[in-house]
């Protein structure tokens, strides 16, 4: 299988101009690649740079130097580190989604529409999108009375399920998930893992951040360990 994403010498440094030009080195010499259809896990202690790396790939963070060569669905090659904003927006709209650790949603939108809007943006009708969302919510056992409520009032676990549903609903080609199973009970955890594995079977490549041994064991094909912003060893879970 070819690589979907090839990261070469990635560096990320934060320059804080308002704190006396303080600099924070976040990522160093990070090079690896993601094969099409694999689940690559990022492990490491809190603060080791896992989420920073993921946000760099999603372009929420700008990289300081290095390249991130991405091969899109049409076979075009794009360096995510230097692509124009419109190119990144197009990739985000059509094939790459990001599921952050904490749900960040536009206020005053019901849970079902938070998720359905991802499908509507890809050209599906709102009714169709809501139907697909309902199916997804059921599998994640999100109580039906919450579907029309605002996620900002949900518990951590409920928010997490909305978050995952939102990232998965459009069946992206490339999925970035940050701690998808934290704050979930074991049954829901397995439901989430099953759904992610189904996506993988359908061809989705996934980068996964998790601290949870169970999740890692069930899901990851390969894992990379980060320590102080540097890659350590790669572990292969068979």
């Amino acid at each position, binding site marked *: 299988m070819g690589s979907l994403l090839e990261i070469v010498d990635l560096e990320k440094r*934060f*320059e*804080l*101009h*308002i704190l006396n030009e303080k600099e924070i080195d976040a990522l160093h010499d990070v090079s690896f690649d993601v094969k099409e259809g694999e689940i690559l896990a990022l492990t490491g202690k809190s603060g080791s740079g896992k989420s920073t790396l993921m*946000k760099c790939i999603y*372009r*929420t*963070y*700008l990289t300081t130097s290095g390249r991130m060569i991405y091969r899109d669905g049409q076979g075009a090659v794009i360096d995510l580190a230097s692509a124009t*904003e*419109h*190119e*990144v*927006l*197009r990739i985000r709209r059509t094939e790459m989604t990001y599921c952050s650790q904490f749900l960040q949603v*536009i*206020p*005053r939108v019901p849970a079902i529409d938070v998720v359905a*809007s991802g499908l*509507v943006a890809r050209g599906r009708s709102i009714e169709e999108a809501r139907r697909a969302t309902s199916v997804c919510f059921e599998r994640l056992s999100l109580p039906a009375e919450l579907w029309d409520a605002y996620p900002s009032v949900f518990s951590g676990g409920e928010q997490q399920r909305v978050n995952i549903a939102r990232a998965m609903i459009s069946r992206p080609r490339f999925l970035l998930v940050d701690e998808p199973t934290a704050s979930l009970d074991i049954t829901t955890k397995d439901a989430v893992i099953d759904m992610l594995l189904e996506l993988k079977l359908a061809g989705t490549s996934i980068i996964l951040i998790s601290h949870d041994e169970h999740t890692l064991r069930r899901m990851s094909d390969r894992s990379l360990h980060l320590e102080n912003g540097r890659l350590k060893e790669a572990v292969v879970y068979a």
Partner: protein
Amino acid sequence: MNNNWLLRVRNLTKIYGEATPGVLERTGPKFDTNICSRTGAVVAVNGISFDLYPGEVLGVVGESGSGKSTLVQMLYFDQEVTAGEVNFKPIEDGNVNLFELSNQKKRYVRNHLMGMVYQNPRDGLNFRFTSGGNIAEKLLMANVFNVGKIRIRGADLLTKTEVPIQRMDESPARFSGGMQQRVQIAKAIANNPPLLLLDEVTSGLDVSVQAKVLDLIRGLQQDLGVSMIVVSHDLGVIRMLTDRTMVLKHGQIVEQGLTDQILQDPQHGYTQLLVSSLL
């Protein structure tokens, strides 16, 4: 891909006072002023360029006096430009500079192809007309000379913007600030323009009313797929509405990028200050 833009802006510049050579080089964030040290001329907008794509929402953020309102007012022909070019796809497939059009043609662009919502409803609405009359004005500008159609469209727009239809034949002078803003939005979208300009639309409103107006704008954007330029000093508004953001200071772009990147990984010291002031 690179030719898909709806609006292309190049080197847009506005100088109040004498446009002497070197005035642009002597002002800007580097000098921490937009006033020329030699002539006293004020450089409100200094060489701004950007592309806006169909359906895209672009945020323009900056403090008072950064030139953000002047920028959209120039695009809406409310203010004369000192220099610069704007191309707009619906006009000659984008091959002509809007500022070189005749005044009559500019009015056509304004009335048929753009909508503007001002911070102060008095700038966008005529309080001597009813709210229905205000919407009618925009439709009449686009040559809809049929009262029945005007009434239906007016009621439709007011419903969409959640203004009670019973108040269609009342002057907006008697409305609350939030409702005036809704009438202004209804008027702005009356002709289904491909481009909507929003200048600090929620600034004068209570927080709860602000939220409703923002929800309305977001809903309309999703339903109509209209491109928008959203000017605000409020990063909360920018976060909620926009895909991409430009940060202005002293008339220049100090930073631009995806909105989530501007908010989470601001590069310029000024943006970092703005973001850190948010919470």
